């Protein structure tokens, strides 16, 4: 049973950032803008917020510092994604091009800035992890569930789950969500009933930027003690989770947990007696999440359909 607790706790570290970033991508793509820049935006958000933690941690620690860092990550991500929004929406340019550009600019400038700002031109940004919650008061004492969800956890896990609930509500139960989906399916029709397609799409991309920036921080905090200008391809994986999740919140949640579980098995198998005893080399375990995703996709994608207008720049003059 201990192994199960361990597995679930570990799984959160992988699944939650994927969930947050994929939900972000969902807002962008459902509004009609492909956001391949998720990886770069994650790096940008992680960079500024970890740099902040690194500089403030001598005087502050714990959840307050983390909350400030979260705000910084969100703001950075949103601002950085403005570049993509401007090119993709206002200039109607190819969305792959500006996305790819952002993916190149973010890690390179993170290294450049880190080496300029930090003494001795060090590239890694070090930080001390003071954010782990040993046990949430009261909730942590609930049998089974308490150990699964409320021990050895991070506040970001609950924020991620909260974002999921809000995202699903906003997309399906609000006027904004309806308009967002309309812009991603048929912007001309949306425009004809008085919706400002450009504004909605800007909102979609900005939300995706905010969430991707946050996701960058959420990914780095539990898995490392320094930030080296990379989020190990998690932005691209989130893109995969988004497509696997069929651009729908609940399915994205499932896809993120599925992938997170596979990833946990592959990285923490040595902590699980049954898997350790199989004697399979670690490189094979590391392939498991990707192979499993491919197989799952092969069986489930036959009727997969992206938002109809996703990737197509909206031109008001075009009918």
């Amino acid at each position: 049973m201990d192994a199960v607790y361990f597995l679930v706790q570990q799984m959160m570290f992988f699944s939650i950032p994927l969930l947050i970033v994929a939900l972000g991508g969902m807002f962008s793509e459902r509004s009609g803008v492909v956001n391949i820049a998720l990886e770069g935006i994650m790096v940008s958000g992680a960079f500024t917020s970890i740099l902040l933690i690194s500089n403030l941690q001598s005087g502050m620690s714990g959840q307050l510092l983390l909350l400030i860092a979260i705000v910084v990550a969100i703001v950075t991500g949103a601002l950085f994604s403005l570049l993509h929004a401007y090119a993709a929406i206002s200039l109607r340019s190819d969305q792959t091009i500006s996305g790819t550009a952002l993916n190149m600019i973010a890690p390179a400038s993170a290294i450049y800035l880190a080496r300029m700002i930090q003494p001795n031109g060090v590239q890694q940004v070090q930080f001390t992890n003071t954010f782990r919650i040993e046990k949430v008061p009261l909730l942590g004492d609930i049998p089974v569930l308490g150990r699964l969800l409320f021990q050895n956890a991070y506040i970001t896990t609950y924020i991620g789950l909260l974002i999921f609930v809000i995202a699903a509500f906003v997309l399906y139960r609000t006027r904004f969500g309806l308009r967002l989906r309309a812009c991603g399916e048929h912007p001309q029709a949306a425009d004809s009933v008085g919706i400002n397609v450009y504004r909605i799409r800007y909102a979609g991309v900005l939300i995706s930027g905010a969430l991707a920036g946050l996701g960058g921080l959420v990914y780095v905090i539990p898995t490392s003690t320094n930030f080296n200008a990379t989020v190990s391809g998690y932005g691209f994986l989130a893109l995969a989770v988004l497509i696997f999740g069929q651009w729908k919140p609940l399915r994205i949640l499932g896809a993120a947990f599925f992938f997170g579980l596979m990833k946990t098995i592959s990285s923490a198998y040595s902590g699980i007696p049954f898997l350790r005893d199989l004697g399979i080399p670690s490189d094979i375990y590391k392939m498991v999440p990707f192979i499993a995703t491919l197989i799952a996709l092969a069986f489930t994608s036959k009727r997969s359909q992206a938002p109809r207008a996703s990737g197509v720049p909206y031109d008001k003059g075009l009918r």
Partner: protein
Amino acid sequence: MSNLRKSLSSMSASLVAILAGLVAGFVILLFSNPANAGKGLLTILIGGWNNGMKGVGQVLYYATPIIMTGLAVGFAFKTGMFNIGATGQLMVGGFVSIYVGVTWTFLPGAFHWIVALLMGMLAGMAWGMIVGVFKALLNVHEVITSIMLNYIALYGINYLVKNSNLFDSLRNQTVNVAATAVIPKAGLDKIFYITKGRLNDVSSVNAGILIAIALAILMYILLNKTTFGFELKACGYNRHASRYAGISENRAIITSMAIAGGLSGIAGALMYLAPASGLHIHMEEVLAAQGFTGIAVALLGMSNPIGIIFSGLFIAHITVGGFYLQSLKYMKEIIEVIIGLIIYFSAFSLLVRDLIAKAGKRRAKKGNQPSKQEAVS
């Protein structure tokens, strides 16, 4: 004539983007260290020439794999596919060519590297074809398949190398390939070197650059002068229309991805069929950067194979310039920032191109009108 004008205007769009990117880079240099900024920009612009003919050779050497991956990405773009998997295809091709280069020593002399190269190409083709098959038959988005295959290639190759006689455990990398499997210099070492004392310091450039340029020209002919290429492009422009015209969409997708994979596979072979001092596959968990740079090369070259030769050379040129930038106390990462900015501005320059095209049309109209009247009268 209109073809020439079109390619000229798209070239000018790329040039505008490059100019804007360099200006932005200069601003960054100014902010980080104003005293050296002018010198810094000059160093970037001079690129390989900073170190005479050897530096120029290094530019060609760095350009070789990214021209190949640029072709791989650009070719897939033409069929409407985004090949983000060039890096995985490159590694699979590189791995297989190393395998052949190390173990198939029974092959006579010159055949060895050619066979190793071809096997690398075939392996890349197979890896790229998986993406096409998943897309065509199972409707799986090519981006997601490519991303998954990248990581499968990465860990799979690590596993295969570590558990075979290809592993140099001391250096944590692959062993050297046989001397007969190394890509020959083809006389380029007689051109690209500098003299240091009594010794010639020779550049790493080899016949790979000639192969890359030849393949780019071949791809240009394939895309623009053959029915097959026309069908591929037709699928890229409008899937439904080309299906209506009797073109098999599935076949186009699969073959286009196979060819793209083959081009990346050759990139890997050209990289790793190297002498002991050259590149080896390291047992690290990092995807080969050349695959992603290929996306930038393809975008800057507007997916045109000939354009890709030049954009690959340009990106290699300023990357080499970045190495020399470090002597001025600048970080070489600024080059990647500049390349990113150039790509970003090239998104703008589609707009510039439209403006140029419109202006050109207007002028053409004005020029035509009197002649029409003459014809009437």
